[in-house]
């Protein structure tokens, strides 16, 4: 029972963090590319 709760929590955590993490990482990557212009 405890194992079931843990694995369901793990999936929920993965989904929730991916939901906010993927767009954020893409946005940061895009901004980083823009910031590189400073060093060219």
């Amino acid at each position, binding site marked *: 029972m405890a194992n079931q709760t843990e694995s369901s*929590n793990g999936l929920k955590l993965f989904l929730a963090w991916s*939901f906010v993490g993927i*767009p954020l990482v893409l946005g940061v990557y895009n901004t980083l590319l823009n910031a590189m212009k*400073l060093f060219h």
Partner: protein
Amino acid sequence: MGFFSFLDREHTVAKPGYSRWLVPPAALCVHLCIGQAYALSVFNLPMTKLIGITQSAPGDWKLTELGWIFSLAMLFLGSSAAVFGRWVEEGGPRRAMFTAGCLWAGGFLLSAFGVYIHNLWLIYLGYGVIGGCALGIGYISPVSTLIKWFPDRPGMATGMAIMGFGGGAFIASPLSVWLMSKFNTPTHVGVMETFVIMGAIYFCFMMVGAAIVRVPAPGWKPEGYTPPVTSSKLISKNDVYVYDAVKTPQFWLIWWVLCLNVTAGIGVLGQASAMSQEMFPGVITPVAASGLVGLMSLFNMGGRFAWASVSDFIGRKNTYFCFFVIGFVLYITVPHAGAIGSVALFVFCFCIIISMYGGGFSTVPAYLKDMFGVRYVGAIHGLLLTAWSAAGIFGPVIVNYLREYNITHGVPKAQAYNNTMYIMAGLLVIGFICNFFVKAVHERYHMKANDPRLAGTAKA
């Protein structure tokens, strides 16, 4: 009433086995969306060409008129956070997030209609007033919930959410440009469709946040966590009622601490591009300056998480001491960097300054929690955000007017910002003094166990 009962605080209490690490992404769902406000400027130029399409035509809106949209949104951010803070605290995070989502999406849709019929007043009402209220309610909604879930690391927890507000523009800016390019035709700019789609995306995102957020059950604490027995005098175990908090000197000292820290940061944030090009003519090109702005926004976001997390170890008061001392040294160094022509030193100073600007926002909720307890921290934070609105006026005004004054009095452009930097450094000295005088709140302000105001308010 029945349909909306799932929004009630009592329906949001976490069941056993719920992982507290689901709360930061819930908070980020809201903060990443409302952080779009920092990217509003990408619509400025297209909205000056809604009639002329390729260039402004008679009847098109002017940039100065469009600037009021952001100013109104910031004004309503501060005032709605102050007015609705207690409602947010007592109604629970889900109700607040749901409301913020509806207002944010509604503001976008009304603005889209304003673009469609070419009525700027509708955009002032949609984005400025309704969207501004969404900003205020959404900004404070997850703060106290995160503090309750992470009593062992309150700074880190609120830092994660407030980092999202800084990062929201990273997503919104390229998304807006891409959407406008998709709907752009030779006879149409594509702003209206972009507003509609962004409103729909943000609504879905914020509803996910509202669905997964939970408040801890009464008496819950993290596994293995024991509150420190001998804690600092500056960390209160008592709660202060929201309207009693504003009667304390501590509230107003922290109000000035935040206001001065933000004034100093906001003043350079908006002017970084022009300032860098004028201080290093021929060395920093407009393209390189846009890179500097991008780099600074990364430090703004990173600083929100990093400094708030550091504050869990060194304390909030000491963290603000760092901001004021390091900030003072860096502001004084900027003119020197310009004089010796060191771009690297200039960029270093600005990036650290901006990280501390972001850090000031994210550290303050935990500072308030230390001073006034957990129960009304969201509402007190809401009242404190009026300092942000005030700083939004002071910062740009000081930088712009001082620059104009210097140039009209014959100071070369490259040196026109030097006095501004020294004045910003002076503001940080005042901030240091305010922070120095922050002491523990007098016990006469502490709520008693039999306080009648506790009736009907949930402790969780």
